[in-house]
């Protein structure tokens, strides 16, 4: 007799959760170690102690930012029931980017008192708030409208960034403010910046992991989720605010790196399905690994340039993620048409 599928016979216990997280972490660790071996001169091999120190910083930062964006993407997609939602497309990243950029100006006294991370969060929240306010109709968020408004808010935020940049006559060179506009890993960060971002991202991730069971139920309609014991409105707030906070913390140290939050949940779903309890740890590890790989690739691609300047990783993730997004959009439009036709 067919029982429940082999993988489902065991309950989702504490041991399985710990094992899953450990396996995901181990997978990421292997990728991260491999990325440590890729240098900006084109050589591949274990580096000297000094170079290892520098590369380790890049690899860890890439992992932190990638993990943050991917786990935020899982939360956004589940709670908005929208496979196209991600921190970048929702405007959260560009809002945080603009706020972080503004934070450095002495005129922003109030902002400085708030702290960089918090101000970045306010920027992200404001951008997401604007996107939701414009995109929602009678409390409903149409997937495509949401994306259109997100794209426009991103464009406006980017333009404001460039305008201020031009006004203060800060040359938009690669490695300078331009790096922050497209998203790239920086090495000129203070330890406090990195530690506070890491602490917020780790805390946010734990909160999201805690609510993964409820996020599973939230992927059903509101009435069904409520009937299954989930208080959907408080859950929505917790998930959106946590995901936005995690995004803002990542953007504050790296700028708005695109598509990691979109691609990784989908890659994860190909492996474990849409069970958020497994998807969150897996997508997080995939995000960390993918951005490590993108960072190593940008180092490797820079081997022949005169200045040896690495490409901002945001350029690479955009190049790879853009077509992936178009594919998703095409598939999504097709499946929506099929569902409507079949009912």
């Amino acid at each position: 007799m067919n029982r429940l599928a082999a993988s489902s016979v065991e309950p989702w216990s504490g041991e399985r959760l710990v094992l899953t997280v450990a396996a995901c972490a181990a997978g990421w660790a292997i990728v991260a170690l491999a990325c440590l071996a890729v240098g900006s001169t084109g050589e591949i091999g274990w580096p000297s102690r000094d170079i290892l120190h520098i590369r380790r910083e890049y690899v860890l930062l890439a992992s932190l930012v990638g993990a943050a964006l991917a786990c935020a993407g899982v939360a956004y997609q589940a709670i908005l029931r929208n496979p196209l939602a991600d921190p970048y497309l929702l405007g959260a990243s560009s809002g945080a980017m603009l706020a972080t950029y503004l934070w450095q100006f002495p005129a922003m006294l109030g902002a400085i008192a708030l702290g960089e991370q918090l101000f970045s969060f306010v920027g992200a929240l404001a951008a997401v708030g604007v996107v939701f306010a414009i995109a929602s109709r009678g409390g409903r968020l149409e997937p495509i409208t949401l994306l259109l408004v997100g794209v426009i808010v991103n464009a406006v935020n980017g333009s404001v960034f460039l305008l201020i940049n031009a006004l203060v006559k800060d040359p938009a060179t690669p490695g300078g403010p331009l790096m922050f506009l497209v998203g790239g890993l920086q090495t000129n960060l203070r330890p406090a910046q990195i530690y506070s971002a890491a602490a917020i991202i780790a805390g946010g991730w734990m909160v999201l992991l805690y609510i993964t069971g409820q996020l599973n139920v939230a992927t059903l309609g509101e009435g069904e989720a409520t009937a299954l014991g989930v208080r959907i409105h408080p859950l929505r707030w917790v998930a959106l605010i946590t995901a936005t906070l995690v995004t803002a913390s990542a953007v504050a140290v790296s700028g708005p790196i695109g598509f990691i939050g979109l691609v990784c949940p989908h890659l994860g779903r190909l492996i474990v399905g849409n069970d958020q309890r497994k998807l969150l740890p897996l997508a997080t590890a995939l995000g960390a690994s993918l951005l490590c790989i993108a960072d190593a690739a940008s180092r490797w691609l820079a081997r022949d340039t005169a200045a040896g300047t690495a490409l901002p990783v945001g350029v690479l993730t955009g190049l790879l993620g853009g077509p992936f997004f178009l594919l998703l959009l095409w598939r999504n439009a097709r499946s929506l048409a099929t569902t409507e036709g079949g009912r």
Partner: protein
Amino acid sequence: MTTTITATPLLHATNVSFAYGDKPVLREVRVALAPGEVVALIGPNGSCKSTLIKTLLGHLPATGDVTWDGKSIRAWRRRDLARLVAYLPQSPTFDPQQRVADVLRMGRAPYWGPFGLESTRDVEVVQRVIDELHLNEWTTRRMDEISGGQRQLVYVARALIQEPRALLLDEPNTYLDLRHQVELGRLMRRLARERSLGLLVASHDLNLAAAFADRLVLLQDGAVAADGPPDEVLDPELLTRVYGVRMERLTREGKPPLLVPDAQGR
């Protein structure tokens, strides 16, 4: 079709009123449901059957008193209420890629711990319901690989996996052919009889409702027009007035009456 009705009803709702903005849609509705009882909620389109079900579940903020197991709906924690009452909406949401087994497991959500952790009992209950409803063949299939009728049975199973004492179903026959409608009706009767489950079912089909329900509650413009055994509520004059189409009643020996609309009439 007699049922022993215990002193404490599962559901007791009185003076339930609800308005969408300024427009009142439910007017002082009174409805009760006892363990082991099948109650069919009937009425024409716009009589607010679905709205009533949503207010009984506390999904819509109605005025009046709704008590479940003697406790006001406002005092229930969502999670605890989900262990007492299960709900099957008219068009349940489904992810076409999701496996049937994963849809069923979701029925245990009101019992999951933090991080969505499951107990061995959770898995046992899922397996027991799968066995009882003979769903074993489908558990590994995706939701888009089974028929509409099979999907409906999966939703009923998910509701039973909640181990509720009451089940609220909104037009469960919408996507079912005649055979599946009859099978679902029999299943509802069996659940009421064997598990003392109280079932409240919104239905458009008067005859099917009469065949399987102990009691019919007829709604008209958001108010109760009649509440009683099928024989009493299926009054052709009353139904003609409520539905706006002339009805003819055919009586049958030892069976509930059949109501037929007079297509030739006014």
